[in-house]
């Protein structure tokens, strides 16, 4: 109190008022530092959550684009320009047309410098004028830089050219020699300036053009590799003799996702422009861009849905925080009302501090969102992918800020109405009705979503449904809402039941939950957070396991080597020798045609090498191997030039019959038949000579009875030929050695062909093989053969093959497929699966040895592979041993590479964001719970002190509060865990990431129970810690002075 001297105003009124306003604001923020900090953090998270998604999406878009368009060779994505058929254009005009292609990185479509080719068809003539070979004369931009010259140099003038070494050898041409070519009928002489190695020819530079087609002509004259000439060599040729071509690489590294539409338009415009100039222009990049667009679309929806859930959770938390902060500002509002402030001014008072905090939090939140997106992008996206803060992110930040302000306003409304005494029962009833309607809507929406998603999502026929990612949030919200309604009711009933018991703490805790609706609402937030974490963890592990399984399955095994096998090498035997353990390598052959794919595997090693995940209803790999390779007789191998057979013809047959022995040389794919006989009654040795192929080794494939038939119509038209084959031997020039033919062993031979209506028979005895051939003139002869292959080759067929009517007759397990040699093969497809390793869903798998035994032609169309198991490591040792046997590896596919590629797919990148969201939501829920308790600490402390004043022990109060918090946390935890696991169980199959992985083996959605238990236990521990801290806070605040303060 003072003398009343007034300080002279030292500053203008407006500035003074600004100072007062600012001072008041700062004092208020300082006074409520804790709640202001919580609000600031939640607002920060809201903006960060909203911006991280779009920023990550933009970066992921770019990553997917780069992942799809950069790896393919330039030929796959570039622009190929040719002359229109039948039209020729001057080379200068051709180049001028292409000069108009945009090269600037800022252009809509950006191209690198074209690679021009001038090609003229030529005949190589001998000095006498005979056509020795055909070849293309080629001049291609920079060709000499990409050819490896063995001798000489690049042609430099119109009269010189370079030739491949193998072509030179064929044509007997040397460096410096003169080659005469006929181009368009006119002869020209060229000097050979250099010899190049054709081995250097394959590569990206050549765009797959057939310049190195040595030996590919099926008819004479032979074709030789291209003759590379200087462009000036074409000057003298008429334009119609020269085909012009330009290969224009697209600058795929410079492609930006945001510019794709413009790029497409630019590319189309250029193709149209070139078309108007009389050229044919086309690019394969469209298919890649369509793939990119598809992935980006799935990614956009998924990320938006994931981000939306986090944003909604943040806004819910913000709503609660704002409500509690506003309740803490009730005195400010009451005073403002007392001083006659208008409703607008009251809102200004209510929102003043949150608005200021939002203004500060928005840019910082946007920066935090960018950092989160950057960290996620560094971990998940292709290295070097830019992470831009684009206009979409800015818009998201603004929208999130506005949404946060709206949530704050909504949260503050109750306190505002309370301050103006405008919260009578009528308004509350309306609010309650609206709240109930909203909750009913949420529950109905969640139910509808679950029904819809479970209908489309469970099973192998799952359809891509990005909204499936919304399931955990939606179901958890519904579960939380139901729990928040049901639990207080249950608590009320339970408390009433035990109110006369000695369980005072429990009763108090139950009463609080039953009557204080604020705290139970925390259960909704906890439920959503726990659900998101459970779903993201389940999704992560299911995804990882499926990705790994699918990568191995689609590859075939851990590593698959495509090999080149010399004709003299027994492929299966060589692979077995390269891996004597039988655990590391397996031989396989694949052949495809329009009807499907035949996969032949070395069944003995299948179980230990091939990737064979469990498929519904499918057998184990060991059972598959046993099924494919049943016990059969050994094959009958003959090695030598002379075949001797001891045969006892037990009855005279007229005219005299013979036997035709069929043998097959696998290495050369050559079959031959030799005749034994004519047979004479009684036991005799018969000699016959095999062709040179069997000096290595041949399989004895069949023995066919041959009977010349009756000489006159009066004679019988059929004959019974009873013989006993006692011995089969071969000689290599020295002495005859018996062949292990199993003649005296039962089941080693069987009748494979009989004339219609006849029944030849065989039986084994100690002395040999007894056979009774029933021969009918003019009909197919009876045939017996070693039973070294099953009568019907056992095969594993896919459901697709089984469902195609062209294969498999109805009601039968027999399917006709194309064998490795291209001939028809009937198999017994008794075992069915959804898909086969490496070859997919339209395929048949048989045993390789059986398939090879069934071959009658060389298998030139099949691809030979060596599958390596993880036990082979990098496979270097096996590869080395294969190389020693002459088997060269031409390419390697690995499951890990494919898995890495899966990881960079758009839907995967989108789904990975869920883990980040899970962590963020867990932090939010924890913070929200802590704040909810902290905000009511003072009130709780007053109540606690009052209860202690009436004699309640401190221990009882602590137990009561622990009971209350335990009920809330357990409600949220259980509701969240159930919702999260249910969402994962029902909706994961519809998440685009998983539908994108389909096509191989059926995906498995077994829940990672162990990890989910860890998550739930971790959440329980975290919530327990939060509850303990809260109890401690209230305990510390429960000092007797609280009663006095309360009274005041």
């Amino acid at each position, binding site marked *: *109190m*003072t*003398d*009343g*001297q*007034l*300080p*002279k*105003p030292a500053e203008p*009124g407006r500035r*003074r*008022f600004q100072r*007062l*306003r600012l*001072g*008041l604001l700062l*004092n*208020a923020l*300082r*006074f*409520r530092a804790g709640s202001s900090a919580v609000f600031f953090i939640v607002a920060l998270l809201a903006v960060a959550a909203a911006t991280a998604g779009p920023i990550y999406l933009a970066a992921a878009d770019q990553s997917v684009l780069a992942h799809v368009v950069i790896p393919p060779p330039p030929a796959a994505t570039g622009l190929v320009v040719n002359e229109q058929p039948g039209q020729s254009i001057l080379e200068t005009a051709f180049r001028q047309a292409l000069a108009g292609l945009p090269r600037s990185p800022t252009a809509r479509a950006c191209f690198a410098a074209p690679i021009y080719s001038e090609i003229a068809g030529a005949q190589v003539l001998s000095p006498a004028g005979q056509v020795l070979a055909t070849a293309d004369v080629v001049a291609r931009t920079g060709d000499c830089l990409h050819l490896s010259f063995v001798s000489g140099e690049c042609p430099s003038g119109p009269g010189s050219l370079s030739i491949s070494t193998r072509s030179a050898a064929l044509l007997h041409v040397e460096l410096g020699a003169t080659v005469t070519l006929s181009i368009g009928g006119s002869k020209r002489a060229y000097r050979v300036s250099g010899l190049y190695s054709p081995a250097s020819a394959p590569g990206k530079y050549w765009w797959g053009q057939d310049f190195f087609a040595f030996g590919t002509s099926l008819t004479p004259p032979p074709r030789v590799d291209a003759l590379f000439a200087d462009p000036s060599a074409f000057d003298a040729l008429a334009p119609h003799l020269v085909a012009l071509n330009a290969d224009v690489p697209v600058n795929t590294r410079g492609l930006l996702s945001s510019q794709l539409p413009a790029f497409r338009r630019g590319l189309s415009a250029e193709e149209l422009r070139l078309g108007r100039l009389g050229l044919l222009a086309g690019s394969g990049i469209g298919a890649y861009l369509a793939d990119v667009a598809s992935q980006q679309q799935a990614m956009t929806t998924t990320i938006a849905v994931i981000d939306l859930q986090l944003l909604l959770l943040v806004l819910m938390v913000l709503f609660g925080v704002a409500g509690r902060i506003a309740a803490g500002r009730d*005195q*400010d509002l*009451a*005073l*403002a*009302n*007392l*001083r*006659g*402030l*208008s409703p607008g*001014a009251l809102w200004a008072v209510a929102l003043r501090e949150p608005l200021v905090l939002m203004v500060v939090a928005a840019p910082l939140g946007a920066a935090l969102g960018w950092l989160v997106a950057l960290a996620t992008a560094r971990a998940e996206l292709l290295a070097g992918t830019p992470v831009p803060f684009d206009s979409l992110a800015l818009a998201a930040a603004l929208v999130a800020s506005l949404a946060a302000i709206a949530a704050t306003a909504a949260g503050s409304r109750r306190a505002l109405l309370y301050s103006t*005494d405008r919260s009578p029962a009528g308004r509350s009833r309306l609010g309650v009705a609206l709240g109930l309607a909203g909750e009913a809507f949420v529950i109905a929406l969640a139910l509808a979503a679950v029904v819809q998603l479970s209908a489309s999502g469970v099973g192998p026929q799952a359809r891509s449904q990005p909204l499936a990612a919304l399931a955990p949030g939606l179901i958890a919200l519904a579960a939380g809402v139901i729990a928040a309604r049901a639990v207080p009711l249950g608590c009320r009933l339970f408390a009433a039941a035990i109110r006369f018991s000695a369980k005072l703490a429990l009763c108090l805790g139950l009463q609080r939950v039953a009557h204080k609706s604020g705290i139970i609402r925390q259960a909704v937030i906890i439920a959503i957070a726990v659900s998101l974490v459970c779903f993201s963890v389940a999704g992560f592990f299911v995804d990882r396991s499926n990705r790994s399984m699918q990568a191995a399955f689609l590859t075939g095994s851990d590593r698959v080597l495509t090999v080149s096998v010399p004709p003299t090498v027994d492929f299966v035997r060589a692979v077995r020798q390269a891996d004597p353990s039988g655990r590391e390598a397996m031989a396989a052959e694949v052949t495809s045609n329009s009807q499907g794919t035949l996969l032949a595997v070395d069944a003995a090693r299948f179980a230990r090498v091939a990737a064979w995940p469990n498929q519904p209803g499918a057998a184990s790999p060991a059972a598959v191997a046993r099924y494919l390779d049943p016990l059969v007789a050994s094959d009958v191998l003959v090695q030598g030039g002379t075949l001797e057979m001891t045969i006892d013809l037990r009855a005279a047959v007229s005219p005299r019959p013979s036997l035709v022995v069929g043998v097959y040389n696998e290495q050369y794919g050559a079959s031959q038949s030799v005749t034994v006989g004519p047979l004479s009654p009684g036991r005799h040795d018969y000699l016959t000579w095999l062709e040179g192929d069997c000096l290595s080794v041949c399989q004895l494939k069949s023995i066919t009875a041959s009977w010349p038939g009756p000489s006159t119509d009066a004679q019988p038209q059929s004959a019974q030929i009873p013989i006993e084959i006692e011995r089969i031997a071969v000689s290599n020039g020295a002495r005859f050695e018996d062949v292990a033919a199993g003649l005296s062993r039962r089941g080693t031979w069987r009748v494979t062909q009989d004339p219609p209506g006849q029944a030849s028979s065989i039986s084994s005895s100690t002395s040999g093989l007894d056979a009774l051939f029933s021969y009918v003139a003019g009909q197919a002869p009876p045939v017996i053969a070693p039973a070294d292959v099953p009568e019907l080759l056992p095969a594993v067929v896919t459901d697709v093959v089984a469902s195609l009517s062209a294969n498999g007759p109805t009601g039968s397990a027999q399917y006709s497929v194309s064998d490795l040699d291209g001939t028809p093969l009937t198999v017994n497809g008794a075992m069915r699966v959804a898909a086969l390793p490496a070859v997919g869903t339209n395929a048949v798998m048989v045993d390789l040895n059986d398939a090879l035994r069934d071959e009658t032609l060389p298998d030139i169309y099949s691809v030979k592979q060596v599958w390596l198991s993880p036990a082979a490591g990098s496979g270097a040792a096996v590869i080395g041993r294969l190389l020693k046997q002459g088997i060269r590896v031409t390419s390697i596919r690995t499951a890990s590479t494919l898995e890495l590629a899966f990881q960079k797919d758009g839907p995967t990148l989108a789904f990975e964001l869920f883990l980040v969201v899970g962590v963020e939501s867990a932090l939010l829920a924890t913070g929200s719970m802590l704040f909810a308790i902290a905000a009511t600490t003072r009130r709780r402390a007053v109540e606690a002190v009052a209860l202690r004043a009436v004699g309640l022990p401190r221990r009882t109060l602590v137990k009561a509060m622990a009971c209350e918090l335990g009920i809330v946390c357990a409600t949220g935890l259980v509701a969240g865990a159930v919702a999260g696991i249910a969402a994962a169980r029902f909706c994961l199959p519809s998440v685009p990431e998983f539908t994108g992985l389909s096509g191989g083996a059926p995906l498995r959605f077994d829940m990672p129970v162990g990890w989910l238990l860890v998550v739930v236990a971790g959440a329980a521990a975290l919530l327990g810690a939060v509850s303990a801290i809260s109890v401690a806070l209230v305990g510390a605040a429960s000092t007797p002075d609280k009663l006095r303060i309360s009274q*005041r």
Partner: protein
Amino acid sequence: MSGAVGRLRRRSPARTAPVNTARRHIGLDAHLRALVHLYTSEGFQVVALRGVDLDIDPGEMLALLGPSGTGKSTLLKLLGGLMQPTAGRIVVGGRELRELSSGELRMLRATEVGIVLQDAGTNLLPYATSEQNIWFAQLGARRLNHLVKEPADVLGQLNLGPLAAQQVSRLSGGEQQLVALAVGVAASPSLLLVDEPTSQLDAEERDSAIALLRAINEQLGSTIVVVTHDPAVAAAMPRTVTIRDGRVGAEGRHGEEFAVVGADGSVQLPPDVLEVLPPNALVRIRRQPDGVDLRLADLEGAESPGEGFAP
């Protein structure tokens, strides 16, 4: 009534009065007629005021005296337009409060009626300085272009200048009460309603508060209504109205006590008289030339002399 409010709006935009201008404006008069107020407590209707009649002249200082729960604070809130009476009329400055809209009532509180609630803390923003509290209390008036003094001037005029920059939560209870009174007059109201201004103050602080109220009345000319249960405060007021059981029971003017005849003819007896004539006592009323003689009825004999009451 709305015309009066409209006049408020049309006032000069000059919002800040000159420093040290001891301009006395005329206080508002207030008239309460047959005022009844009920409120619901735990499902039961409780009568807070039952037929209060009261006239308050412009510029008058009046104490509403009575024990707790007699309806004093309710009466104050009704006068301030914070609540609507169940029945009866309240006319403030010639305006019937019942006929004013909520917006007009807010304008009234922002410009013409200052209210200081019981417990100084409820009138103040605890985190703000005294000057900021004054400024905050003037916000409504400033928005209506109502003429108000600089916050520092308000404090200076009430000799509270040294407290201007101090955060009120750090002030003593007495100082907080003084600042609360200053906040009440921040918008230069014509009617100041003060609820229990001395309830938590010691004697010295109480005297300071009373002195400040007097100063406000003298310097601003405001009509001041003080609710108190403290007879010392009431004694310091020129006029005291005693509220008992929701009615005006007695009135003191310049130190002399008077009973008030209610609208229904009832008279509330002072406590000391109640010792002689306890409730439910049978009394004989005899009219005297200068008043009324009230004696305990002795149905079996003559009245006992000296046990009656004569005004």
